């Protein structure tokens, strides 16, 4: 056991999963993840480039992936906004990019799950609730990315990045994967069998390739298969729950903690914690809402996942938003709403059909 902040644990987990390349550009609260990769990768035979910008970082990772290595990049949602063109197109290029969003809250849900970029692409989104899960999800991310040849985003936040815990990182086992017979490394140049890794949907001249329309459809069909196979979700106390609370990530851990306590006090409340944000656990949410009288959604933003919750519930029960925007004075950190007592109040208010208490204000600091 070693005292590590989440950023360090995640970097170690990535390296344990065989990540050989990382590139990123500093931005709070992502900076420390970059620092840990920079410190650790060289020792494990990898390379970390302190890229001059986010756009260059994702480009470098693109290159490392194209030759068949495991590679990742990341930033906060703001920096990832700059990478949206690349995320959309790299999905079409079918490269297994792993992306870390050390977000400044939960307001990047749409960006992550709807594809902030152009086009029909979606990529897998894993949302760990604490450092332990982050260590597992990071390794899973690299596996799923290779399994499906699609980007996988790990949605972290200020807490995951900065909380320190005594942990140790143990490598996980996954089902075997096929060889990367699509990767380029130069050895096929001049043989007539040279390869191309491209988002454009064209193969080398003379090889059967049905063009961009067919390629776009094939990607979407793959995404449908992922949606069917890769849903992950945790839930608790649903059987006789009158009230169901849906929350993800670290706030999901707070909610789970509160629901546990309320159950101990006999309140008929359950929870659903989506672990994959895409594919979203629509079925689980639908099932949870079956018998329930009300569904509450707790997000640290204006309410984005609530769309997916509604799409799962589809009118079976009223869906109420009980979260809200909450940040510290800098806008990067943890706001006052992320508080066990306040979350408890809000869940009980919903449960007893009482008016929602007003959101707390953080004390101005500038």
């Amino acid at each position, binding site marked *: 056991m070693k005292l590590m902040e989440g950023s360090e644990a995640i970097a170690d987990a990535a390296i344990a999963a065989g990540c050989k*390349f990382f590139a990123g550009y500093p931005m709070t609260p992502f900076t420390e993840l970059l620092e840990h990769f920079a410190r650790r990768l060289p020792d494990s035979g990898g390379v970390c480039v302190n890229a001059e910008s986010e756009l260059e970082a994702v480009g470098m990772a693109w290159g490392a992936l194209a030759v068949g290595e495991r590679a990742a990049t990341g930033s906060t949602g703001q920096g990832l906004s700059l990478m949206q063109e690349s995320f959309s197109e790299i999905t079409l290029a079918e490269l297994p990019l792993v992306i870390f969003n050390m977000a400044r809250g939960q307001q990047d849900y749409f960006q992550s799950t709807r594809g902030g970029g152009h086009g029909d692409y979606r990529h897998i989104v894993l949302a760990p609730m604490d450092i332990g899960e982050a260590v597992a999800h990071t390794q899973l991310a690299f596996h799923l990315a290779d399994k499906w040849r699609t980007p996988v985003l790990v949605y972290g936040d200020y807490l995951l990045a900065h909380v320190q815990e005594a942990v140790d990182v143990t490598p996980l086992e996954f089902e075997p994967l096929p060889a990367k017979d699509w990767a380029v490394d130069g050895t096929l140049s*001049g043989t007539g069998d040279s390869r*191309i890794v491209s*988002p454009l949907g064209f193969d080398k001249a003379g090889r059967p390739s049905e063009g961009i329309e067919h390629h776009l459809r094939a990607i979407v069909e793959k995404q449908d298969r992922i949606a069917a196979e890769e849903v992950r979700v945790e839930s608790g106390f649903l059987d006789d729950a009158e009230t169901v609370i849906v929350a993800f990530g670290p706030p999901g851990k707070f909610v789970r903690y509160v629901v546990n306590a309320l159950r101990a006090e006999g309140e008929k409340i359950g929870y659903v914690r989506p672990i994959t944000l895409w594919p979203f656990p629509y079925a689980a949410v639908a099932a949870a809402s079956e018998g329930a009288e009300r569904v509450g959604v707790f997000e640290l933003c204006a309410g984005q996942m609530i769309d997916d919750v509604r799409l799962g519930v589809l009118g079976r029960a009223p869906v109420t938003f009980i979260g809200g925007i909450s940040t510290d004075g800098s806008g990067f950190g943890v706001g006052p709403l992320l508080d066990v007592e306040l979350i408890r109040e809000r869940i009980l208010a919903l449960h007893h059909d009482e008016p929602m208490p007003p959101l707390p204000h953080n004390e101005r600091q500038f």
Partner: protein
Amino acid sequence: MTNVEMRQVGKKLPELLLTQEHHMCPGCGEPLALRGYLEAITELGMASRAIGVAGIGCYTSFSMTMDVDLVQALHGRAPSVATGVKRMRPDSIVFTVQGDGDMVNEGLQEVLHTAARGENVTCILLNNGVFGETGGHMTATSVIGQRTKNSLEGRDAQYHGYPILIGDLISRLEGAAYVARGSVHNAGAVARTKRMFKRAFQAQERKEGFTFVEVLTMCPTGWFIPTLEGPDYMNDTLGEVHIMGELKVDGVVRTTEELHEENVRKAVEMEQALARGGIEDHHE
């Protein structure tokens, strides 16, 4: 008709081409640069280690026709992609193929940062001073007076600003080991440019740092002129500002004067060579 006693001179097609067909316009200079770097790779025996990274422009169609392992990058991003490739495959020969719109407009900072970092990759610029692909608009390299879709009367400095001489800028970066600017407006220039490709790849092989070859190419379509006028028009406009020659060799920057002298000398040599009836070394 082939002639038995005669020996073949050069090759009709570069070996590293999967098909002769390409959809470039008549009189386009880009396929000439393509011939140059493909033959250079073959002649240096680097074929089985070559990895190309292509930008987005008319030359993007070469991604499909080159018999070279290739990574198709987004518009402007090729140098960073090449960086990732090279860092993971240090023994391969990595080169980008980009246009002026791709490299000097959309992705200017990519190539400059890559050069400053001294990445061991070769960036190739096909500079025609226009966005050929999208219809011939002015780029950051279009020279004053040049005809483009949005400057049919010639680029005006007051309204559009001045061209960026990218090769010159890059040559000033410490991370850049070899920087050259060639052209394809006549046979001699084509042969000379091919030698530049070779020097760049060899420097990359020796891990000397970032290497750069810019090639001025004709774009009659984007310049709105007859194909036949392409070479002279290029030489008189782009060629007058983007001075041809080796701008930096073994880490030493050369002055514009030196380049001018050399260009005159080479031109004369070439005349003589052609008159003598043959450019011996274009297929050395």
